[in-house]
């Protein structure tokens, strides 16, 4: 005890000691009382908890000649064997629900739910799917009203695919019609669980914009993305754990499969608005071209085949062997590339083109038409080549190159060998776009505005070897209702084979770094392509 303490403190200490002793005596019965109350509550809760209905009860359940209404719609799907559980909500009346998820082998997963929300245990789900690849997955739903007997619905049936899906996707999240760069981030989601983390967020560098992220061959060790905001505009390039920036406005990116080169589009976007259309906003490129960046030399170049002054080139993508660059190209029916072409914007329809490229010699061949707009009668954009090189997955819309703003945009597949193309079964009445192949070519992920026509969500579907798609399904979430009130939109989903290796801190440092590779001063088609500045919020 401190010698400086006064006598009052000393008394207090002794009193505390005495009081403490008295309290020890007094607390013992109190502890017993509390423990007893807790035990009683636990026993009551255990007694009140619903138990699994017996087999006899389930067998005697009254059959209902239809499937249960569940949300999201996870009925009739082809499901990857390594996907996170398809949690759902039962939208049928009932006070208690019993759900059994079964397949050919292994014990079924059984769940009881009062609310109708079904949260499937991860480990048991994984085991069930892993043991039953290629087999049918059935979900039996029983419902019991508050007073009454059990009712059984027809089984919800899905198929477990043989082929796995890439374990991660990276995507962009932002607000609809984002203008102020608030709440924009690039995220990565582990498809085998529900883990989701930010790769980079605009909030970390003063509410900046991020867009056009890309990976070579779904390899997470390489990444490019475009940023703009307080630290200017730049392309962030990541190789392994290191990141740096190249100054300039570099848009859609396509990594050469070798990882040595990235093709970027450069464009001038004109935003505009509709007075009466269902979708209020539109966008068009008044000018665009393609450029390519060599990572070894850190130089940005272009070439006449991909930067024709009389045409608009965009949406680059490489063939898996790296010999061809595919892109969308349209004739430019106006001379001025700086202002909004109000009279002609709806006349622009893109062809799918490709050009041969020899990376060793840095030589571009002549441009070939893969699929013309005149053949489809629509604008063909966003080509993505399947990993086996057989198909081109692309998007069509009425005009222009922003299919996300047009409700009738749909996904199509083109057989490169036969030249036939067809509309995929996974389309909806709303805008479907921003698509990507998995690394094994058996799955695609895309953004769809179904069912609201406004808020894009991510959908997965299986593609068989003939290019036929299964029923698409919403990316599963831990909370099945989490998309029901989400005002953000997802776009540009990209499969990756693992988590992004570079840390957010390293990315952020690159964004903030004023030392940048200077690449502007591009020669060729168009000298300056100024980006329209977003409306800046004035201080109140």
């Amino acid at each position, binding site marked *: 005890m401190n010698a400086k303490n006064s006598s009052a403190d000393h008394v207090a200490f002794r009193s505390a000691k005495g009081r403490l002793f008295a309290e020890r005596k007094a607390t013992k019965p109190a502890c017993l009382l509390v423990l007893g109350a807790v035990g009683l509550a636990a026993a009551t809760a255990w007694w009140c908890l619903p138990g699994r209905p017996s087999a006899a009860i389930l067998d005697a359940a009254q059959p209902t000649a239809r499937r249960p209404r569940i949300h999201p719609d996870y009925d009739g799907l082809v499901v990857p064997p390594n996907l996170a559980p398809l949690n759902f909500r039962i939208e049928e009346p009932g006070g208690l629900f019993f759900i059994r998820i079964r397949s050919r082998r292994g014990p079924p997963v059984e769940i009881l739910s009062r609310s109708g929300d079904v949260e499937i245990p991860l480990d048991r789900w994984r085991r069930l799917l892993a043991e039953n690849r290629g087999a049918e997955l059935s979900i039996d739903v029983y419902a019991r009203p508050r007073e009454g007997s059990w009712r059984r619905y027809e089984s919800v049936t899905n198929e477990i695919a043989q082929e796995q899906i890439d374990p991660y996707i990276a995507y962009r999240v932002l*607000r609809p019609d984002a203008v102020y760069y608030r709440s924009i981030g690039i995220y990565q989601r582990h498809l085998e669980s529900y883990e989701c983390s930010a790769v980079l967020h605009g909030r*970390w560098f003063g509410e900046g914009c991020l867009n056009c992220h890309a990976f070579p061959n779904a390899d997470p060790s390489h990444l490019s993305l475009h940023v703009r905001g307080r630290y200017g505009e730049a392309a962030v390039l990541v190789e392994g754990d290191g990141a740096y920036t190249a100054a300039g406005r570099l848009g859609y990116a396509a990594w050469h499969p070798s990882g040595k080169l990235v093709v970027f589009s450069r464009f001038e976007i004109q935003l505009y*608005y509709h*007075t009466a*259309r269902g*979708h209020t*906003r539109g966008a068009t490129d008044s000018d665009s071209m393609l450029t390519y960046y060599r990572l070894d030399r850190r130089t940005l170049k272009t070439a006449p085949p991909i930067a024709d002054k009389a045409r608009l080139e965009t949406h680059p993508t490489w063939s898996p062997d790296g010999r061809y660059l595919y892109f969308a190209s349209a004739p430019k029916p106006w001379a001025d590339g700086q202002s909004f072409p109000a009279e002609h914007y709806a006349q622009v329809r893109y062809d799918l083109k490709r050009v041969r490229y020899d990376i060793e010699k840095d030589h571009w061949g002549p441009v070939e038409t893969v699929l013309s707009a005149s053949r489809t009668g629509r604008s063909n954009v966003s080509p993505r080549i399947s990993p086996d090189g057989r198909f081109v997955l692309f998007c069509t819309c009425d005009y222009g190159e922003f299919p996300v703003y047009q409700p009738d945009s749909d996904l199509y597949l083109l057989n490169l060998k036969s030249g036939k193309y067809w509309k995929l079964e996974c389309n909806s*009445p709303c805008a479907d776009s921003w698509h990507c192949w998995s690394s094994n070519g058996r799955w695609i992920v895309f953004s769809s505005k179904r069912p609201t*026509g406004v808020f894009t969500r991510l959908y997965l579907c299986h593609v068989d070897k003939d290019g036929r798609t299964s029923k698409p399904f919403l990316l599963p979430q831990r909370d099945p209702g989490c998309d029901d009130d989400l005002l953000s939109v997802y776009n540009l989903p990209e499969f990756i084979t693992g988590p992004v290796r570079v840390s957010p801190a390293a990315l952020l440092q690159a964004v903030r770094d004023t030392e940048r590779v200077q690449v502007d001063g591009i020669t060729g088609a168009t000298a300056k392509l100024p980006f329209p500045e977003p409306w800046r919020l004035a201080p*109140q």
Partner: protein
Amino acid sequence: MSARIGRAIIVWWHDTDRWLVRGIFFTGFWAYVCFSIRPRLIYDAFGIYLPYPEFSVDRACFREAFSRAAGPLEYASAFLSQWFFVSPVGALIVTGAAGLICFGTERLIREREETRWWLPCLLPALAVLIVYQTYHHPLTALLALAICLWLAVGYKTLARRIRVHGVLAAWQPIAFLVMCVSLYYLAGTVCLLFGLLVGTWHVCVERRVVAGAGAIMASALVPWLVGTKWFYMTPVEAYCVAWPFGPGSASDLETGPLNVLRGLFPFPLGMLLVAALCRGLPRRLQDRVAGLSRRGGRALRVTAQLLLLAAAVAAVHQFLRAPHREKRFEMVHFTLQRQWDQVLLVARQLPPSRHDCFSRHLVNRALYHTGRLGEKMFSFSQDQAGLLLLSDDARHGAPKFWMLSEIAWELGDLNFAEQRAFERIEAVGECPSALELLAKSFLAKSRTQARSTAPKTGASAFETVRTTSPGRGTDDTSASSREAARVLLNRMAKNVIHGRRAEELLGLLDASDAADVPWLQDVDRVGALRCKDDRVFQDYSEELMLAGLLRANPRNQMAFEYLMAFYLLSRRTDKVVENLHRLNDFGYRGIPRHYEEAILIHANETSQPVPLHGRQIRPATVQACQRFLDRVRPWQDQPQLIMGELADEFGDSYFYYYAFGISGTGGSR
């Protein structure tokens, strides 16, 4: 023993004094905030004149808040801010914050049974009053200060107990660091103040210089270490979290209230130093000063203290108000309540020079809804920017987003209302009013689409739309628009105050009949006004907007009156005359006064007869025109010289505005 009991009685006696005065003071504080300031005005201004405190009962929102520095405090502050919807509760929250700061300061500086500091420790309450009286809402910063003070009190108590119980001294710095880091995570850079308070206490009271210096240095490093390493902030950002210092901090506060708020933070530190200095004075001097404060009877002492506090509050009320800002807040409040007469009444109380484009905009809206736009608009201060806020003169920001989206909705420009509402949500936050307006907008599209498309037999409504409405033009579907409205209302349902309303509105989404449901009737009304011919634009103008709406529906009276107002404000009397025939579409019996004035000006300038379509101009207007012309004619070369003389008689007329570009300066109100 008896001396001890006697001392205890005296302490209790004085304690009752203090608690009585405090009780009366804070009760009066609450009443003043509740009835004079009216926190409901502050609530209504969220997302318009004040930052919107985003809060929803949502796991994602909770997780996001707890993933950044000061996020927990901002989350709590946003929750408390929702209750400003009910003025007494809002007043209680403000009183509570003030009380926490005052009591925290007193506990911090009090040693043993000292009671002499309680009165000056009420000063922070006056500062809080000043800030709220000027209609600012720095609740986050105030709560940060309160948490910091009480944590410092907690540390002080803990430090003493550690020593009293002989626990290892090493626990003290560990406890300090844990508290400091936790405080930074919970409440932001106020941990610097925490370090200063603790350090000063160690140095001045405990006489432990090394411990004090260590505390100050450690607290200075915590923001940099935690903010830059854990939360990806720049060093500057790390030192500007949730407190009113540093670039960009508290940027929504005006200079005066910001300085008052800033002064609040070092106040406890100052009091701590003063108290320590006073304790260093000779004992005899301290006793003499203490004796002075106990002079006089109890009643007299209490009364004097109360009078002093009341005088301080009265001085704050008299000299430190922001009456014009208060009027703007009132105008917003009455606009939200649709009490248009009250809007105009309050607008009259604002001097013409204090009107801005936003207050003018609200005035015009109120005038339209009270049927007086064409009669009285120039009895208020007017300018072209204030009509529809489409020009760059109307500063881009939260008030503009709100007003644009609302006026576009009322006019029937669904797409524009939707666009502005989405912008508002992105820029300001998920305001319930923006969510509801968007839901109405999508529902209006859905209902008009459903009515205009008759489904084929065997086909779903959606498929029919796809086949009968090809390509561009009618590309929406009834069902998807309704689902979009559902998502928006689901989001609104997570709002603490408006959640129940959202649940009710969700139930209306599938209703086909709008009878007896005013909300649906409004949706159908606006749906019927919607533009049908699609045009694209980058820059919107008043004429493009209003003429388009009138083309879509010639019976759109609001569009007509606003178009005429636009022509009046832009001095296009020819256009006013050109559109006079539309008066027949709306059943006007006479010609509104300002239109008459414009007609007379036009006739005077062109010397051409003006067709009145069966109506007449009132003789009083003709006579006023003649008088005005007679007065102005001699000053044609320098009409500004007579501007002041004519203000009183003609300041509420279009003649005056047309000649001088000013209105609302006088005349018969």
